């Protein structure tokens, strides 16, 4: 029985590790820190599933009620969010914006140099626009379009209604469009 649970959890790790890593990486802009925090996310999640009482300092909000963990992905994101907040609180640092993310993370080895440069320029443009958005807007855009979370899943993580999430997402996109328009004019 315990082995089955372990196997299921490791399958969840396989499915989510890249997404959680990317989510954290956008916030901390360091490969090493993102790796450390990502492994901590899964360790804490496992501890919570196994022995919820020993996971101190985790404010899991609405998820805490859901002992069956019907939405593990949302659960991982919630832990990741808390860990990033804790990280900056402990280090007494200001959150790092997307601006500080280096291009070394772009790891598509199959492309030619020209394709890479084009993609890199385009990425840089979108990245520059994204950094001008508020954290809330950045977060919903990353979840919806990079991690492909459903509106329902985002609503669970943010502890908001689906309608509220749709509104935030729509505003975030409009804001991003506006920023990009201004940037391209300037």
């Amino acid at each position: 029985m315990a082995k089955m649970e372990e196997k299921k959890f490791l399958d969840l790790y396989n499915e989510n590790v890249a997404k959680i890593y990317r989510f954290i990486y956008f916030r901390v802009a360091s490969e090493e820190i993102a790796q450390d925090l990502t492994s901590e996310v899964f360790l804490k999640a496992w501890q919570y599933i196994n022995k919820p009482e020993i996971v101190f300092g985790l404010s899991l909000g609405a998820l805490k009620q859901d002992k069956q963990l019907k939405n593990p992905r949302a659960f991982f994101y919630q832990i990741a969010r808390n860990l990033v907040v804790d990280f900056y609180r402990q280090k007494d640092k200001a959150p790092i914006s997307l601006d500080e993310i280096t291009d070394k993370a772009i790891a598509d080895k199959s492309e030619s140099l020209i394709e890479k440069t084009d993609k890199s320029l385009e990425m840089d443009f979108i990245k520059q626009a994204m950094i001008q958005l508020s954290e809330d807007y950045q977060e919903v855009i990353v979840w919806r379009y990079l991690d492909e979370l459903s509106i329902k899943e985002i609503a669970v993580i943010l502890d908001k209604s689906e309608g509220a999430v749709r509104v935030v997402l729509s505003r975030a996109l409009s804001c991003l469009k506006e920023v990009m328009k201004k940037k391209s004019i300037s």
Partner: protein
Amino acid sequence: MQDKELIQKIKLLKNISPNENWVISCRSKLAFRMEMERKQSILNKDLFTLKELFSFWQNPQSVFKAVYSFALIAVVVLGGGVLTAFGAMNSLPGTPLYPIKIAMEKARVVVSFSSENKIKLQAEMTDRRIQELNTVVGSQESLEQKSEKIGVVVSQLQEQLATAKNELPEVFNVKESKKMVDAARTMGEKAEQVEKTLARVKEILPQDVKQNMSDKLSAVAETASKTSTKAIEFMANSESDKKEVAAKVESRIQQTEEKIKIVGQKIGNSTATSTSDKLPITAVLIDQSEKVQKLVDEARINMDKNDVSAALETLKAATEIMNSTEKIADNVIADTNSKADNANKESAGNATTSTVQTGSESGEK
């Protein structure tokens, strides 16, 4: 700018991904931690074991105490993960570390980003399963243990071959690298090796075990054959050496012909031993094997015309018909054998009864 266009641009940021080696090592650490926690909880239940483990505390020599503690911590904390990983990589089915080995292998595939890497890894894994199968078959274990372990390996093989087959692209894309063709070639060769190994396993296994596992073994052999054919198809559509592809198709034609002979023998055996009610079935089987032979001849003609894809399509049809023919022949033989066994048992029972009766009658006299 349209929303759709904007979303496409946002999606470019998806290229940010973690290092593959880190993902594997992190997973291994997580698995190791889970295992240790599980073992710890078992250990906690057994106070006696715990006392034994820490009995050195009762020893008055503090130097010994320190050395022992250090050694214990070093072994558990530092060596544990490496030992587990090493032990798992060399484990065989039936051992506690085997599921970890399989999980680690699957994790490697999951975190590989390119199709060619995924196929290469599947080929490596298939090779390991073949070795495991050979080790299990050659071991001195009981038949029951052997068949259980063969079942585990064969199930893994089935899953891996099916995944590899799905991973092979349907259509060759010019952008696809030479590496992809190499990966497809290796996978195809491994799938062929699986077919040969399974045929050998079938020969070695005793009749009753073989009969129990027959469906499973046939299913894997079928998947292996399909994977191998798909790999050749992919190579034929790519810019691979035409001679190499032709040689591979020829080899498959020969294999199919050999299989026709084996199935023919089976049909012959079933005709010799079966009762009159089975004769219509054997007639159908003979008809089907003749159809297979015609299709194989057609495949040869297609190859003479340099039409590789038509040859492969014809071979696929031939293999499908042959597999179903073999299954029916196997069922006829199994049915005839079980009827013969029952008849033997009955006659043996009658003989015993008559002996007992004769004995009691002579006693009465």
